[in-house]
């Protein structure tokens, strides 16, 4: 689904530094626990998609939420990370999980 079709405007651009919300709501959540509260950089905007938290509950998930691929440094995410300092992990995060 393209952004144009849905008319959803992403709040963040490529390169923006963003932080994942730290929250633990009930329901079906696609944002992994381990990444909540961590900061990374927007690597790309993947498009906009119906909100899976709503789709899981038989609702239409509209308006669609922009989805970002966010790049995090491994050593920021895992305490005591022993790999290379430049190692990264990328996750796809919906806009409403970003602050």
């Amino acid at each position, binding site marked *: 689904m393209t952004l144009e079709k849905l008319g959803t405007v992403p709040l963040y651009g490529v390169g923006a530094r963003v932080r994942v919300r730290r929250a*633990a709501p*009930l*329901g*079906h*959540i696609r944002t*992994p*626990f*381990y990444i909540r509260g961590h900061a990374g950089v927007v690597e790309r905007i993947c498009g906009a998609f119906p909100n*899976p*938290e709503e*789709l*899981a*509950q*038989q609702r239409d998930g509209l308006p669609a939420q922009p989805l970002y691929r966010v790049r995090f440094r491994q050593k920021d995410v*895992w305490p005591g990370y022993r790999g290379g300092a430049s190692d990264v992990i990328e996750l796809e995060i919906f806009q409403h999980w970003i602050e």
Partner: protein
Amino acid sequence: MIERGHHDMGGLPAGKVRRTEHAYDDWELRVDAMMMLLIGVVGDSKRMTVDELRKNVEALAPADYDKMGYYDRWVISLTQTMIQRGVITSDDLARKLAQVQRRGLSPISRRQRTKGR
């Protein structure tokens, strides 16, 4: 407050991952096919979303979640979803299961039982 769902295990200590391919049982292929039909990846009818599948997998009791295989979780979850959506009722399911039990094992399940898992 539930901080972290049981299924949400990224980053937790775990055993070695087996990186070899393995063959699927006939029933597993059937479950996969059923799912493709229900979410409308194949065919025209869209009876559920993959997000509902995930929601109901996540709702499994932790002990059940741990001992079940991938397609065990799927078949339980898609059945729950069909009940939630009113495609079938719990009563339909109970009666059908009893009927199947009376009939005895199907040739496919008999074959799989002797094959062992």
